[in-house]
């Protein structure tokens, strides 16, 4: 089955990104496909490569980058939401790309299920 994922909250502030990541990991382990993860609202902050969590904490941004690399998961950051919040190509972490809201709608059309994680 193809899943689309929407994340509306930033890392560390809210559990949304953690829950979404663990959902994606479990889905991939079960042989499902993650069609796309779309980052919207404050969720765009998950794409900042300037993030530096303490050593004893999980690295939420790097975890997403690794998932993208290992499983070819498409991580899309909404351009309008990103520009509002200072996320640009120059501070984008590996594996993420900036694109339009049409990518969210397309995920809704193409995926079998769209699951939203937010506040």
């Amino acid at each position, binding site marked *: 089955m193809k899943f689309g994922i*929407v994340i509306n909250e930033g890392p560390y502030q809210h559990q949304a990104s953690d829950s979404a990541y663990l959902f994606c990991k479990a889905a991939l382990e079960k042989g499902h496909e993650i069609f796309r993860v779309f980052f919207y*609202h404050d969720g765009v902050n998950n794409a900042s490569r300037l993030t530096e969590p303490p050593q004893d904490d999980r690295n939420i941004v790097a975890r997403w980058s690794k998932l993208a690399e290992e499983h070819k998961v498409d991580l899309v950051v909404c351009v*309008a*939401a990103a520009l509002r919040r200072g996320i640009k190509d120059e501070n984008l972490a590996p594996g993420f790309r900036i694109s339009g809201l049409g990518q969210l*709608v397309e995920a*809704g*059309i193409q995926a079998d299920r*769209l699951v*939203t994680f*937010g506040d």
Partner: protein
Amino acid sequence: MSDIKKFMFVNRKAPYGTIYALESLEVVLITAAFDQDVSLAFLDDGIYQLRKGQQTKGIETKNFSPTYRALDGYDIEKLYVEKESLEARGLSEDDLLVDVIVLPRAEMGELMDQQDVVLSF
């Protein structure tokens, strides 16, 4: 599988206090361009998004409420308001800035069941 899916946007949050209502509306407008079957549901404080007479000058924020009136031009005509939420806020259809379909909660729930994609922000 048909390429047209039923998209419902569920709005449960008030405008201005957070950005969710505005950014939700931006997705709605984009979805219209994809020729999908779009409907909007307003429950709880989401109903306040449709309140007439919003004046945002004093908070130096853009008043995005006129956009709801423009939805018609994008062929988005299905705006549903849950009756119980409306009444709980002491509002009636006359207090809203756009024509809506008022549905009792059970009918709203049934409508949700019929959707392919339910987005809430």
